[in-house]
């Protein structure tokens, strides 16, 4: 059997034993004070995955609790804390930073052909801000937990005796970490592109992270201000949100969703970027409608600022506001639909390799289709009123957040793992775990759609007898999902032993990061890259064609 050797690899053979970013320096200080984007990315990877595992464990506890109508393990007070912490960890400590800060940090400068991000010190500072946020959140848990839900709606969040202030400050910190990362990436994209890398030669992952960064910079300050106001409200009683003092509790919802709707796209846009890369490489084909995909990222970023009211259709907003928010929500859905079609068209007539990253990408395409289509029900005013605050919404956003963003994150992790560590994981185990995750995920959340449209309200510690079979199916699904992730952790850790070394260009990619040894040297490339080809030009890999 002849091994297929991509051209990029024959050009510059890796010198065995040459130092790379993991082993150029040693010791705790060399990591704690590192300015290398790759090491910072790795630290984010460990941090976000740890948060994901904590959040996932909490999710399992929730599902086990809901095995019985009267609740199997917690009293309602504790249950409320558990679902709040699950949401806070998953949203603020995992999904928002996962792709941009962990994968983005590692991959973005390399894709641009740069040695590092434009502002390496700010990059390290944002990691420590994230860590401070995590510490504050842990303090909040020790000082009595939080039971407001991740949305912190007033006036409950003003009145509850739990540690809302600590948690609020923690998320404030994480918010600034997110702003700094965004700022850094925007500057890097503008300033550090390799010679010849014009805007329309940039891989779509960069376009996606760039759009995300704009959102992070523009939307996150609103979250910061909102949480500070909440803290002031609790400490000084300033009366902005508290109706007893003439404040308006619904104002909080406006502020909160003015950030948190764009935040939905902070979560999904980079995921879309990962999927574009993975599909292109593993189908060895340029992404169909490249410019449409790039522009729809930007379009989504802009319109997503104008739809926040769709979370509040039953709050008593005016009919005209309802109309505008519903209309714009449909409108922001169209670019996502276009992307989905573009990806399918990319697979069409490709050279489809069923590798682990590609399997995750296919899982993404299926789940994101369901996530997006069920979003249409929620955008529709009269149907929204029936479904609002039910399990239907829970299922919908898990299809988009967990089933799409998290799955895309894991597609990316498997795609760039050989690049990051220079080792390959066992594809057999990886495919098994991918299958378990796919089955477990759907078994967990499909029943929730039905419960929801039947009227089961969310955030209930106990429920009516008749929902039992649906809740139990969902719990079984969650356990399967948990087993899938446990296997993933096991084989990924095992791969680090280095039983199987990765090739320089493991999958045959043509973006710049593959034009570097695995793992890359400290300065990313052996010689400064120059881009002479159009983006995703795979002909170079195959001289015969």
């Amino acid at each position, binding site marked *: 059997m002849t091994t297929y050797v991509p051209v990029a690899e024959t050009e510059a053979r890796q010198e065995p034993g040459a130092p790379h970013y993991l082993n150029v320096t040693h010791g705790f200080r060399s990591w704690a004070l590192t300015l290398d984007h790759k090491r910072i990315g790795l630290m984010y990877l460990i941090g976000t995955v740890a948060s994901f595992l904590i959040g996932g464990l909490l999710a399992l506890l929730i599902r086990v609790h809901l095995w019985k109508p009267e609740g199997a393990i917690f009293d309602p007070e504790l249950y409320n804390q558990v679902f709040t912490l699950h949401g806070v960890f998953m949203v603020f400590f995992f999904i928002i930073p996962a792709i941009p800060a962990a994968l983005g940090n590692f991959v973005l400068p390399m894709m641009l052909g740069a040695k590092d991000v434009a502002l390496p010190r700010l990059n390290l500072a944002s990691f420590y801000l994230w860590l401070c946020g995590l510490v504050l959140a842990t303090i909040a848990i020790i000082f009595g937990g939080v039971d407001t839900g991740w949305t912190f709606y007033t006036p409950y969040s003003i009145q509850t005796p739990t540690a809302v202030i600590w948690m609020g400050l923690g998320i404030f910190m994480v918010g600034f970490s997110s702003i700094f990362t965004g700022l850094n990436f925007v500057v890097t994209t503008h300033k550090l592109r390799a010679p010849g890398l014009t805007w329309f030669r940039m891989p779509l992952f960069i376009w996606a992270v760039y759009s995300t960064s704009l959102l992070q910079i523009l939307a996150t300050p609103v979250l910061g201000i909102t949480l500070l106001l909440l803290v002031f409200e609790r400490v000084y009683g300033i009366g902005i949100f508290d109706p007893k003092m003439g404040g308006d509790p619904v104002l909080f919802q406006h502020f909160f969703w003015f950030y948190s709707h764009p935040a939905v796209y902070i979560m999904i846009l980079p995921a879309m970027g990962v999927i574009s890369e993975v599909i292109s490489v593993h189908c060895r084909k340029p992404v169909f409608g490249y410019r449409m995909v790039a522009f729809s990222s930007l379009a989504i970023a802009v319109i997503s600022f104008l739809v926040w009211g769709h979370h509040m259709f039953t709050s008593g907003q005016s*009919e005209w506001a309802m109309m505008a928010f519903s209309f714009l929500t449909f409108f922001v859905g169209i670019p996502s639909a276009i992307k989905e*079609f573009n990806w399918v068209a990319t697979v069409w007539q490709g050279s489809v390799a069923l590798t682990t990253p590609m399997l995750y990408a296919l899982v993404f395409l299926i789940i994101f289709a369901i996530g997006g289509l069920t979003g249409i029900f929620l955008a529709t005013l009269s149907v929204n009123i029936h479904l609002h605050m039910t399990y239907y919404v829970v299922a919908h956003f898990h299809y988009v957040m967990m089933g799409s963003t998290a799955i895309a994150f894991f597609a990316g992790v498997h795609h760039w793992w050989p690049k990051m560590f220079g080792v390959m994981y066992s594809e057999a185990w990886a495919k098994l775990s991918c299958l378990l995750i796919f089955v477990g995920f759907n078994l967990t959340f499909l029943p929730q759609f039905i419960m929801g449209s039947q009227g089961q309200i969310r955030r209930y510690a106990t429920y009516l007898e008749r929902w039992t079979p649906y809740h139990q199916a969902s719990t079984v699904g969650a356990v399967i999902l948990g087993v899938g992730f446990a296997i993933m952790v096991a084989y990924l850790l095992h791969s680090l032993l280095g039983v199987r070394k990765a090739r320089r260009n493991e999958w045959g990619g043509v973006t710049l990061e593959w034009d570097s040894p695995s793992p890359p040297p400290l300065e990313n490339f052996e010689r400064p890259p120059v881009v002479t080809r159009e983006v995703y030009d795979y002909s170079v890999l195959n001289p015969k064609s």
Partner: protein
Amino acid sequence: MLPPFQQGGTVQMPAPASTFAADVDGLYYFIFWVSVFFFVLITGLLGFAVIKWRRRTEDQPAASTNTHNTVLEVTWTVIPLVLVMIMFVWGWKGALNMTVAPGDCLQYQATAKQWGWAVFHPGATQPSYDPKTGRPVFYVPAGRNVKIVTRSDDVLHGLAFPAFRVKRDVLPGRYQSLWFRVPEEYIGQTFEFFCHAYCGKGHSEMWGEVRVISQADYDKSPRPWETEPSDPKELGEMVYKANCFICHTIDGTPRVGPSFKGLYGRTEREVFLGVGGPLAKVTVDDEYIKESVRNPNAKIAKETPQGGMAPWPEQLVTEKQLAGVIEYLKTLK
């Protein structure tokens, strides 16, 4: 296949028990079938492509590097756009219908507090509960337009009627309302209503019932909601189940407040005289109970120095009911 939950319902939807339901369900199923179509299309094409063009040799190039097809791209932009605009207009019209109540509505009131409902029928002076379970109950005449005006005494709550497809947030400091009409064929049936906005510990217990009755039964005297147990102990038990069980148990375990077990008749009960006030000893008698209910912060149980119980005015717990509560407490030895 899965059975529908309610008579007249489907696998996905509860019984269509209001005049809104046909429109909402029609739109729901329209979107559903459009979604099924696109889902099958997408996954079908994907599955076909993956099988047909899967990589057989390691150096197999893509079968085509085509990245544009203007006709195709315009088609898959315009068709979804047209479809969602239909959904948008249809949904907006339906929602307008829900938000604008007709002028001839019977007007009910629902007050939410942590964690229970006080449901007032038109002209009623006290809230109505199921005499046995203590659940709040709406008696609704079929064929009449019914409007429910809501308010909250503390945090956000929500009033949701899945079978009627309507729902409205319940806000402190602001009146909000919703309306519906139940068709005659549902006379005799009972549906649930729920609190949909997260409000703390007792959130999932804030549900009650809607009983659909005929206009004749609605007009009968005494009105269906005016009957309450005549035995004081049973009356007290009903009030307990309706208003107090979420915070007070009767088995000795403390919840938000102290348990009622063995409370009545205790001597030397230690209480604070107001939040931050001095400690004193009292005997738990009729007067103490009455004061605890009408003005809880006058004497606060020692275990919970911050208090935590909102006062129950006569409008929510009548004098007669309070006397019943005392009789009931006496039975909890």
